[in-house]
């Protein structure tokens, strides 16, 4: 096979190319958010797009999260295909009303008369010493809400291709981009190899247990799986990719082979995504389980600023390995 078409991209570039393609392909698409235009995006994701597409299609907004996210809902209602960037999940709390009370409800509440083909992108996660108000992982809050779809692209190829799928979806889709991923670099896979946006993907095959994770925790989980392999424990690593709807089929199929599961989730343990999946596995795969389902999550604390405390608060490779080794029958 010729290898001349291989492309290596950063996660940031992958999202940018996805945005560029979306803006090129469909005149109904426009990007709006705080500093997405002249500044180039807080994380430099949209850098250069305003020069190519002009300020009507790459719109800088004032600091009015509720206002412009709601405007995205309204524009979607009226036939556009808006992509709204909320700088971070932390700021999205100011737009919760529009997302939860409008975007998620209007289709059902109107008896199916209206749909909201809206895409909201936001950065999430900790790891850059940004302290307690800029380190949240609140994906599970949105995954709680019927009417929304929640994507967590963890790879460069997913970052490149899920936006198009989200834009083709007739309902509101929220895409979470973990801040620690933007500088990650990898070879871009051909589009045909990318699974549908709502499918979980097995990133590493294994038979001893299933490590289930998503977003910014995928990398750590794969590292942990490699180290476990060197000790003779073969972990399967599943990247959820989509938190709502949850691809139960892939999870249950994996469990039917491995009989053990450890969830790795950067959000807090209490009431988080890991709790939800753990309960689901208990309900639907109880007789497949040879061990309790374990969770590796963030400590129950506002994420602190100092590097050593931040590290201690977040799930680390060593925590994942320790959890796996504590499972009965693994060693």
């Amino acid at each position, binding site marked *: 096979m010729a290898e001349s078409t291989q492309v290596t991209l950063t996660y940031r570039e992958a999202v940018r190319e996805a945005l560029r393609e979306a803006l090129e392909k469909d005149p109904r698409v426009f990007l709006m958010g705080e500093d997405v235009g002249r500044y180039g995006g807080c994380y430099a994701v949209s850098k250069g797009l305003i020069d190519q597409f002009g300020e009507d299609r790459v719109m800088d907004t004032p600091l009015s999260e*509720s*206002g412009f996210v709601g405007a995205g809902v309204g524009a979607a209602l009226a036939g556009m295909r808006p992509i709204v960037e909320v700088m971070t999940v932390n700021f999205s709390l100011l737009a919760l009303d529009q997302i939860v009370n409008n975007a998620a409800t209007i289709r059902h509440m109107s*008896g199916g008369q209206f749909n909201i083909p809206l895409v909201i992108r936001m950065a999430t996660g900790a790891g850059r010493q940004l302290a307690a108000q800029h380190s949240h992982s609140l994906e599970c809050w949105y995954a709680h809400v019927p009417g929304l779809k929640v994507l967590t692209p963890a790879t460069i190829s997913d970052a490149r291709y899920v936006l198009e799928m989200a834009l083709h979806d007739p309902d509101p889709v929220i895409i979470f981009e973990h801040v620690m991923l933007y500088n990650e670099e990898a070879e871009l896979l051909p589009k045909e190899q990318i699974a549908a946006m709502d499918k979980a993907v097995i990133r590493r095959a294994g038979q001893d247990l299933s490590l289930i994770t998503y977003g910014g925790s995928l990398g750590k989980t794969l590292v942990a799986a490699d180290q476990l392999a060197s000790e003779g424990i073969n972990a399967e690593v599943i990247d959820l990719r989509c938190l709502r709807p949850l691809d139960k089929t892939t999870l249950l199929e994996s469990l039917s082979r491995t009989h053990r599961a450890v969830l790795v989730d950067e959000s807090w343990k209490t009431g988080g995504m890991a709790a939800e999946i753990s309960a689901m596995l208990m309900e639907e795969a109880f007789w497949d389980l040879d061990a309790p389902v374990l969770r590796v999550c963030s400590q129950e604390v506002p994420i602190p600023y100092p590097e050593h405390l931040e590290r201690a608060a977040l799930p680390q490779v060593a925590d994942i390995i320790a959890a796996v080794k504590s499972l009965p029958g693994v060693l």
Partner: protein
Amino acid sequence: MSLQDKKLHLGKNDLRELLYKMLRIRLFEERCAELYTQEKIRGFLHLYIGEEAIAVGICQSLLSDDRLVCTYREHGHALARGMSMTEVMAEMFGRTNGCSRGRGGSMHLFSAEHNFYGGNAIVAGGLPLAVGMALADKKLNRDRVTCCFFGEGAVAEGEFHESLNLAVLWKLPILFICENNLYAMGTALERSESETELYRKAASYSMPAKYVDGMNVVEIEIAAKQALDEIRLGQGPQFLECRCYRFKGHSMFDTQLYRGKEEVEKWLDKGPIVQLVQWLSDNYDLTAEEVDDMKQRINLEIDAAVAESEQGELEPVSDLLKDVYTEVTHG
């Protein structure tokens, strides 16, 4: 009341039509109250009694393509917009012949056919939607105006300020209509606003803003027509504060401890219907028989709507989850 010099384009028959439309809302709302006490209508019920002139006066100059965004006190707007009594009443009965298939109830009337976008039960929650729809219309070069109704309670919300700012910044075709009935639930205007001349707040965002007597349908009609004409020329949003009074409680649960009976009675004399009846009697020979005849016709329409609502079907429980998401047909 100085209608004489303001009637302009409104002739004798136009004024009778306005009276008829207000009476239609009044009698409909009175019947709703009865049906509520009979437990035919459940949930929250917010009546528009006393405020009829606003919806009627504004809707008079709207075109079929124009959009409406309303609040949970929106029966009057739906009727003034041309939705049938049956689809509104059946919605409150929770039947599938309701305008939202019975899923929304009193607070969530939707109609794609009438460009009627709710029925929003979060105070100020509709304003960002209006901004977005007007933004889409502007981007798509459609000649449409979005009329956004809200009560004066919304003025205290952040979404009000965000939305007005965005609307002016982006020069959007929106008519903001503040229905100032002096009480946000039970909190009087002067107990919640530092500036009680609410149109001044809108003016501070650099948009044309004024107040009108919200009990005077002619004054409202004239102000709305002028504002809409100017908005259609692409001159950006405008703001109309309609000063009115809610004759009934906030909802059916309201015992109205926060205001005296004398106050309510004082306002009753200034009601939009008594004013217009008086004026038409004095100047255009309106007779009591004519008014009775109108009421009779309206009551027949209401009777029919109630009968059709009673006969409406309940949505089967098997359809409970339908339209949470758009059904994507594969094939």
